[in-house]
C-alpha cells in the first residue's frame, strides 16, 4: 500500500511528525509497536536543562546556542535555533487544539518540575496541572506546602517527598507537611484497595461525587496552604479538568506530580496525540512492527512488517522514529551497536568496555546514551557511508545527545519530528509541482 509519508515509531517524535504531515494533507501512516516512552514520562517537555558542564540552565535557548557551538553534531544542530523555536510554538498551538495546553514561563526561561521523590528538575513546557515554579531564586508566594496522598495508592510516599523537599535550599523557609487521606470504603471498589496503581485509583476518582468528597476531605486535612502537591491520579483522560474541579471545590491551589509508570500525564499526552492523528485522517498501524526494508538506488523502496507478509508498504518519504535501546530502535550485540531495522550506520565503533561507566548511578553520563544513527545535515540516514535520500531519522534514535543528563529528550523529539515533517512536505509538494509541469 502506498503512502506519501510513512513513520516507523509512534512515540512523541513519530506522532509530532505524523500530525504535521497529516495537517499538510499528506497520506501519512505510523507503524507503532506498542505504547511508547510517553507512558513512562513526566508529561512535561524538557528542552535543555543542563549545559555540557552539568550546570543548571535558566535560559534554554542561550544554552542551545552554546551547545551548538560546542557540539555541532548534536540533533539540535541539524534543526537550528529558529526552527526549534518554530517547532515549539507549533507544538503549543497543537496542544491547545488537543485541549491539553502546554505552556512555558512568561520569561521563556526553564521552570522547575517537582518529582514524586521531592526533587526539582528543569523543564521547559508543562501542562496546566503542574507547578511552573521558577528555576532560580526563592519562592516568595509559598509559605506552607502540603504533600497529599490517597491511602491505597502504592506508588507514592508523601513523607519521603516531604522530607526531600525540606532538604532543598529553595524550600528552607517553607513549611512542608505530608498528609494521607482515607476515602470511605464505599468509594473505592477496587478488589485490592491497598495496592492500587495510578490508573486503577483514577478509575475510582474520575467522577463528580468522589471529587467533591475528596475536596471536602482535602479542605479539612490541609487547612491553609499555598500549594498542595498530589500524585497524578485523578483521571486518565481528563486530568486538567478534574484537577481544576478539585481546586475550585476545595479553594486550594493544587498541582500534580508525575508518578511511577503508568504515568498519567505522559499517557494523556500520548492519547491526545494519537486521537488527533486519527481525526486528521492519519493511518495508524498498531499491533504490528516493521521488520525490514528494501533499499535500492539510494532510496527505501518498500517496507515489510512482521505480521503482514502479504503486502509491502511503500512511501515516497520514510521516517525512522524507532527510539533508542529502551524502545528497540537500537540494539546492543556482544560486540557492536546496531540500528535494528535497516542496519544503518551508527556513531560508535567503541568496544563494549567503553559503553557504560563502571558505576551505574554515579551522576556521570553513560556513553551508550549518546549512541545513535549517523545522519547527513538534513537528518537523512546513512548506510555504508551513503545517504538514503528518502529516510529521515528523528527523536532518540539520533545520537550525540545525552537526553537524561541534559534534559533534552522532549525538545529533541518535537523539534526533529517537526523539522523532518517540514522537509517532507516541501519535497513532496515540489515533486507534485514538477510532475504537474511535465
Amino acid at each position, binding site marked *: 500500500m502506498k503512502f506519501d509519508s510513512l513513520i516507523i515509531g509512534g512515540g512523541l517524535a513519530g506522532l509530532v511528525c505524523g500530525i504535521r504531515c497529516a495537517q499538510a494533507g499528506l497520506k501519512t501512516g505510523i507503524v507503532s509497536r*506498542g505504547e511508547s516512552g510517553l507512558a513512562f514520562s513526566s508529561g512535561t517537555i524538557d528542552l535543555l536543562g543542563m549545559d555540557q558542564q552539568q550546570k543548571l540552565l535558566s535560559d534554554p535557548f542561550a544554552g542551545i546556542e552554546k551547545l551548538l557551538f560546542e557540539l555541532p553534531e548534536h540533533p539540535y544542530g541539524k534543526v537550528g535555533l529558529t526552527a526549534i523555536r518554530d517547532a515549539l510554538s507549533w507544538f503549543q498551538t497543537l496542544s491547545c487544539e488537543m485541549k491539553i495546553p502546554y505552556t512555558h514561563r512568561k520569561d521563556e526561561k526553564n521552570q522547575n518540575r517537582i518529582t514524586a521523590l521531592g526533587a526539582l528538575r528543569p523543564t521547559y513546557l508543562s501542562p496546566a496541572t503542574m507547578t511552573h515554579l521558577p528555576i532560580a531564586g526563592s519562592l516568595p508566594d509559598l509559605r506552607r506546602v502540603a504533600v497529599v496522598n490517597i491511602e491505597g495508592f502504592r506508588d507514592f510516599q508523601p513523607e519521603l517527598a516531604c522530607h526531600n523537599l525540606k532538604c532543598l535550599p529553595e524550600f528552607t523557609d517553607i513549611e512542608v507537611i505530608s498528609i494521607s487521606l482515607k476515602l470511605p470504603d464505599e468509594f473505592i471498589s477496587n478488589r485490592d484497595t491497598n495496592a492500587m496503581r495510578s490508573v486503577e485509583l483514577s478509575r475510582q476518582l474520575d467522577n463528580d461525587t468522589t471529587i467533591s468528597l475528596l475536596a471536602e476531605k482535602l479542605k479539612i486535612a490541609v487547612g491553609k496552604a499555598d500549594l498542595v502537591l498530589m500524585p497524578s491520579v485523578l483521571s486518565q483522560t481528563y486530568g486538567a479538568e478534574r484537577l481544576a474541579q478539585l481546586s475550585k471545590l476545595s479553594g486550594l491551589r493544587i498541582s500534580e506530580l508525575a508518578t511511577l509508570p503508568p504515568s498519567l500525564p505522559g499517557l494523556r499526552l500520548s492519547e491526545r496525540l494519537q486521537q488527533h492523528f486519527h481525526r486528521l*485522517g492519519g*493511518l495508524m498501524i498498531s499491533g504490528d512492527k516493521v521488520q525490514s526494508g528494501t533499499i535500492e538506488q539510494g532510496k527505501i523502496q518498500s517496507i515489510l512488517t512482521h505480521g503482514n507478509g502479504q503486502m509491502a508498504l511503500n512511501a515516497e518519504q520514510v521516517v525512522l522514529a524507532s527510539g533508542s535501546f529502551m*524502545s528497540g530502535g537500537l540494539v546492543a550485540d556482544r560486540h557492536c551497536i546496531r540500528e535494528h531495522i535497516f542496519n544503518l550506520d551508527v556513531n560508535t565503533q567503541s568496544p563494549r568496555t567503553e559503553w557504560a561507566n563502571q558505576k551505574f548511578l554515579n551522576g556521570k553520563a553513560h556513553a551508550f546514551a549518546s549512541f545513535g544513527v549517523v545522519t547527513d545535515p538534513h537528518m537523512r540516514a546513512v548506510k555504508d557511508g551513503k545517504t538514503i535520500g528518502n529516510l529521515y531519522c528523528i527523536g532518540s534514535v539520533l545520537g550525540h545527545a545525552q537526553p537524561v543528563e541534559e534534559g533534552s529528550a522532549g525538545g529533541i523529539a518535537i523539534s526533529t519530528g517537526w523539522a523532518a515533517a517540514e522537509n517532507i512536505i516541501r519535497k513532496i509538494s515540489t515533486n507534485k509541482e514538477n510532475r504537474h509541469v511535465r
Partner: protein
Amino acid sequence: MSVNLALLDTTFDMCIKCTVCTTKCPVAEIQPDYPGPKQSGPDGERWRMKGEDFYDEALKYCTNCKRCEVACPSGVEIGSIIQKAKARSGRHKPKIRDYILSHTDLMGKVATPVAPIVNMVTKIKPVRVLMDKILDIDGRPSLPTYSWQTFRQWFKKEAPDQSVFKRQITFYHGCYINSNDTTVGKDLVSVLNAMNIGVQLLKKEKCCGVPLIANGFMDKAQSNAKLNTEQFREALEGDSECVISTSSSCSMTIRDEYHSLLEVDNRELVNRIFFFNTFLVKEFEKGNLPDMKPVNIKIAYHSPCHLIRVGGVVFTLEILRRIPGVELHMLDQRCCGQAGTYGFKKENYDTSQAIGAPIFDQIDSINPDYVVTDCEACKMQVESSTNYKVLHPLSVLARALGVSK
C-alpha cells in the same frame, strides 16, 4: 486434553511491569473486580507456575479483545497467556449456555432449517425471560437471527457460474455468513466477479475457533483448526490463488492463533490466507479497479479490536477512501464491548454495555447514514444498542459497483 498447554513457555518474562496494558484494557476500566491484563497475564503466570491454587477466577472477565497485546511495548502475548491459563486452570467449567453460544456452526446447522421460527421465538419476551433465567443469556440484547437459506445453499443453487473466470480464489465464509446473514458473502462474490475473479468454497469448513477459545473449548477449537488447515492446504494446492475471509476475528484467529495458541502449524500457508481488505488493496494497486458510482452516504467507521491487533485497519480505510461519495467519519478506536459471545452473557451484559457506551454516544453525535465495520460481533452490538444499521465495508463497495445484493 490433547492441546499441549503445559507451561514451558516463559515469554511472559519479557514483561517490564510498566502496566501500560492495564491502562488500555476496556474491561478493567469498567469492572473493578478484574485485576487487568498485567496482573492476570504475566504477573499471574509466575504464580500459576507454582501451582494451580494461584489461579484467579477473575480471569473469566477477560474478553480476549487483545488491546493489551497492541499496547505492550515488549511484545508479550498477554491475551493468549490469559486464554491459556483459563483453559488450563479455570474451575469455572463451560455451561450449556457457553456451549450454545460458542458452537456457532452447529447452532447454524440446527437453526437455519427452521430459521423463521427460531428468529420469531428469540424475539418473544417470555422466551427471553426464560433464556435469561435458565441459560443466563441476557434478555436485553437482540440475538443473532438465522437465515432461511444458508450461504452454501445459495452459492450452490443461485450463484452465477464461477467457472467462466480465469482467476479463482477460495472463500472461507465462516459461521455468521453461512447461517446468520448471507449478505456479505453474496457481496464478496459480486465484487470479485466485477473484478473478473471467480469464487469457490472449501469442500467443507468449520468455525474458525474464536468463540470456542473464548469459552474454554480448546480441544474443539484445535480440531476445527486442523480440519480448516487441511482444507486450506487442499484448496491452495488446486487452482485457487488464495483463501479469503471477510470476518476480522476469523482472520486473526487463523493467522495468529492456530499456530501460537492451538499449536496447529499453518505458517507455510498464512501468507496466502487473506483478509478481504489486503487482497482488494493489492488488486486496486495493480490496476484491477472497477468503475464505481458515487454512493453518497455518510458513514461512521468502527475499528474492530481484532483488526487493530493485526494492524489491518488502514487497508479497510484505503478501500473506503477510494469509494466516491463516501463521507467518512472515524470513530475513536475503543472496544464496542460485545467481544463475540461475551455481551450475550447475563453476568457480562452491563459491563459490555458500559464498555461500548462512549462509542454509542459518538455514533449518535455523528448521526451517520450507516455505521461501517468489518466484524459481525461489533455489528450485532451496535445494531442492538443503537438505532443505526451497520454495513460491512464490502457492502459499501458493492453499492458503488452497482452489484449490491
